[in-house]
């Protein structure tokens, strides 16, 4: 062990001491400057035009460097050519025809340059690029070139006066240092003009719609479970600085189709792994990293097994998945449900982890119909038998309830038939309350039979099925809540496992009530853990990826949190 410690320490320190091979940014100013040279585009310029000079320094014959910024300038004939541009000290302007000797000085070193100012006059002016099109928000640099009476040409970008016919569409700078620099402001066209000594050149600048310049995909990285789905958003950033949601316009691709597929920004995960999600529009792409956790599906278990239903009733089906990392979770919403004979029964999936099996017709004797749940290559089947016995009785359970205001509880109804069988028909029962202002009862979907205590008093809950009725009394009491507690078997949850949390309300009179289904549940880090199904499985979470997340329950003005740790 001690050897390992020394080895690690030594390697880390020694490799850090293996020398620098970076790029030097400092100039060598130790080697003396021995000569300088003035560099110009031309030694002749027309009167009233200018040209920028530069100075190249020679350092002891070892290297050269542009040292224009260190030079001072003078002219022996300032009336012929002079350095009159304050913003550009190295720019010389020809004032009248003639000759001038220009001098540059750096330190104690000077050099001369013979400049001739010609009497040529401008004949034509040309602007380049000619008739360009640029997208709104972008810019371009124009250059002006003059042809003179002596057939010479000269760059007049600095000396010309620049203007735009439509500054709202495109502007062009006439300021020293940025002359000819155009910016596209709005869709349309503008004539860009450069004028020198009364001669103008023009070009038409067309400004097109803003173009996409970059694309970002959000979230930039995310972790989700296998056999689940998530949405990505593509945001386009345009040349005019605007942004737009281009999720539906972009072409989407997943780098690992075996890990996740994606269409229209909606990703469906298949197996554990990572995939790069790419959105592309007009050749511009953006990517996001998708990490799929929770193991690979190895088996499906259907519940209940071999269900029996009475014709025209409904039963709930659940698919539980077993995964390669040893975890299991509800995958009812992730599987594809099929029935061998849809005239006998069908499956409806209203959303979340909820699947209803609807019995439509009686199965022939000894010929149950197969129900199959499929995900990829994994399937599970069970047999449904539908019968049509005569209803003999219904029973409501419990026969009475005592509730605290703002809490709820469930009633169920069991039907007894003439063949001796019974069946939970809660989902097929019509539910009513004699006093909805005291206790209301839900009469749709999975919530059927669920009573909500509204205010103190008593109410009768009536259940009607198959022409028969049953009733139960609900007594509602008002209590003052003191605290809310959250409990679970464990707050350490392996990625892919589903865990149920319970919220308990504690009241001032010493009583308590399970308010798991009455609480509002939220979790702060979906990359760590998510709510299993906020509609149908309140209080249940599924661990996603390593980290810690805060699970919060809110009830009757109280909130409580618990930390969920995913190792």
């Amino acid at each position, binding site marked *: 062990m001690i050897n390992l410690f020394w080895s690690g320490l*030594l390697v880390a320190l*020694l490799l850090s001491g293996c020398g620098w091979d970076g790029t030097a940014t400092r*100039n060598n100013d130790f080697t*003396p400057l021995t000569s300088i040279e003035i560099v110009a585009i031309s030694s002749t310029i027309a009167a009233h035009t200018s040209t920028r000079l530069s100075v190249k320094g020679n350092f*002891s014959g070892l290297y050269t460097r542009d040292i224009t910024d260190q030079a001072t300038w003078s002219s022996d004939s300032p009336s012929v050519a002079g350095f009159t541009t304050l913003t550009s000290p190295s720019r010389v302007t020809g004032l009248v025809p003639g000759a001038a000797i220009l001098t540059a000085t750096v330190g104690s070193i000077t050099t001369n340059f013979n400049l001739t100012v010609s009497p040529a006059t401008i004949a034509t002016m040309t602007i380049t690029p000619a008739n360009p099109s640029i997208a709104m928000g972008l810019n371009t640099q124009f250059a002006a070139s003059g042809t003179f009476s002596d057939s010479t040409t000269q760059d007049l970008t600095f000396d010309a006066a620049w203007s735009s016919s439509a500054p709202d569409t495109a502007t062009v700078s006439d300021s020293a240092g940025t002359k000819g620099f155009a910016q596209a402001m709005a869709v349309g066209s503008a004539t860009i003009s450069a004028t020198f000594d009364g001669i103008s050149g023009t070009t038409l600048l067309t400004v097109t719609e803003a173009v996409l310049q970059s694309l970002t995909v959000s979230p930039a990285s995310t972790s989700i479970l296998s056999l689940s789905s998530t949405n990505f958003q593509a945001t386009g950033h345009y040349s005019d600085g605007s942004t737009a949601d281009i999720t539906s316009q972009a072409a989407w691709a997943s780098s690992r189709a075996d890990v996740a597929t994606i269409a229209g920004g909606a990703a469906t995960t298949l197996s554990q792994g990572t995939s790069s999600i790419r959105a592309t529009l007009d050749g511009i792409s953006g990517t996001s990293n998708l990490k799929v956790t929770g193991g690979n599906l190895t088996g499906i278990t259907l519940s209940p097994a071999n269900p029996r239903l009475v014709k025209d009733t409904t039963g709930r089906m659940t698919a539980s998945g077993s995964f390669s990392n040893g975890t299991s979770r509800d995958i009812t919403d992730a599987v594809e449900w099929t029935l061998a004979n849809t005239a006998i029964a069908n499956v409806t999936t209203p959303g979340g982890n909820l699947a209803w099996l609807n019995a439509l017709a009686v199965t022939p004797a000894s010929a149950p119909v197969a129900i199959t749940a499929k995900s990829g290559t994994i399937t599970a089947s069970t047999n449904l038998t539908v019968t049509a016995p005569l209803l003999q009785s219904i029973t409501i359970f419990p026969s009475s309830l005592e509730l605290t205001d703002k809490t709820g509880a469930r009633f169920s109804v069991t039907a007894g038939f003439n063949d001796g069988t019974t069946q939970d028909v809660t989902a097929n029962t019509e539910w009513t309350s004699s006093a909805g202002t005291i206790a209301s009862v839900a009469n749709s979907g999975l919530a059927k039979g669920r009573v909500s205590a509204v205010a103190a008093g008593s109410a009768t809950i009536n259940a009607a099925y198959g022409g028969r009725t049953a009733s139960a009394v609900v007594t509602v009491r008002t209590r003052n809540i003191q605290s809310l507690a959250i409990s679970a078997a464990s707050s350490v949850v392996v990625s892919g496992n589903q865990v149920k949390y319970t919220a308990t309300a504690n009241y001032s009179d010493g009583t308590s009530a399970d308010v798991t289904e009455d609480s509002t549940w939220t979790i702060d880090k979906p990359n760590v853990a998510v709510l299993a199904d906020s509609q149908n499985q309140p209080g249940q979470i599924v661990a996603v990826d390593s980290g810690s997340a805060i699970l919060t329950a809110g009830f009757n003005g109280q909130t409580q949190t618990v930390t969920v740790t995913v190792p």
Partner: protein
Amino acid sequence: MKRTCQIIIALCLPLLLCGPVRAQHSGPYVGAFIGGNALMDAESSDDLGSFSLKFDPALQGSAVLGWDFEPGNPVGEGRIELEYTRRSNPLDKVKFAEGSFKGGGNVTTDSLLLNFFGVFRDDRPWAPYVGVGIGAARIEASDLQVTGQPMSNDSNFVFAYQLGIGVDFALTKRLNLDLGYRFFGSTKPRFAETNGHKFAMDYFSHSAVLGLRVGF
């Protein structure tokens, strides 16, 4: 230079795999070492930018005064010593933005370190050791030049440290031949340039040393 550096490391690492064993001599000792050192290319910077200094390898000399722990010592088997070392590396080249230029002068280091070595002894006549040292160094930019022009002539005191590994050969009970490798580093010394700026440079060197220690 990086490849050379990595080869040195690779050659020395197997020494760390030797097993711990018993000590021989205990008590005070003195010693002298001589060796070669390679001063790594040094990133340097001042307020005008960064540049690098490349040095030639050079000889180094050390003198040590220490104490061999007796076998079974509760702090472990090994030795503690005070080490003085002098290194002086000629400046070969200086790399600026324009390219590399011929250098001149030396960077000379006088260091005083307190070293702690753990020795892994058994009945064999040789024993591997590893150790660390901390202390101070005076680093002198002695007449540094670029293309024959003066660059710096200054000195600086800095915190210094050292890592060492090697093998002791017991020639007699009191006389040991020591073959070792040392990695020496320091905080960045800052030197005045002739043009008024000040530059800071990295200082890391690798050394191979051969020495004799005499116990008494």
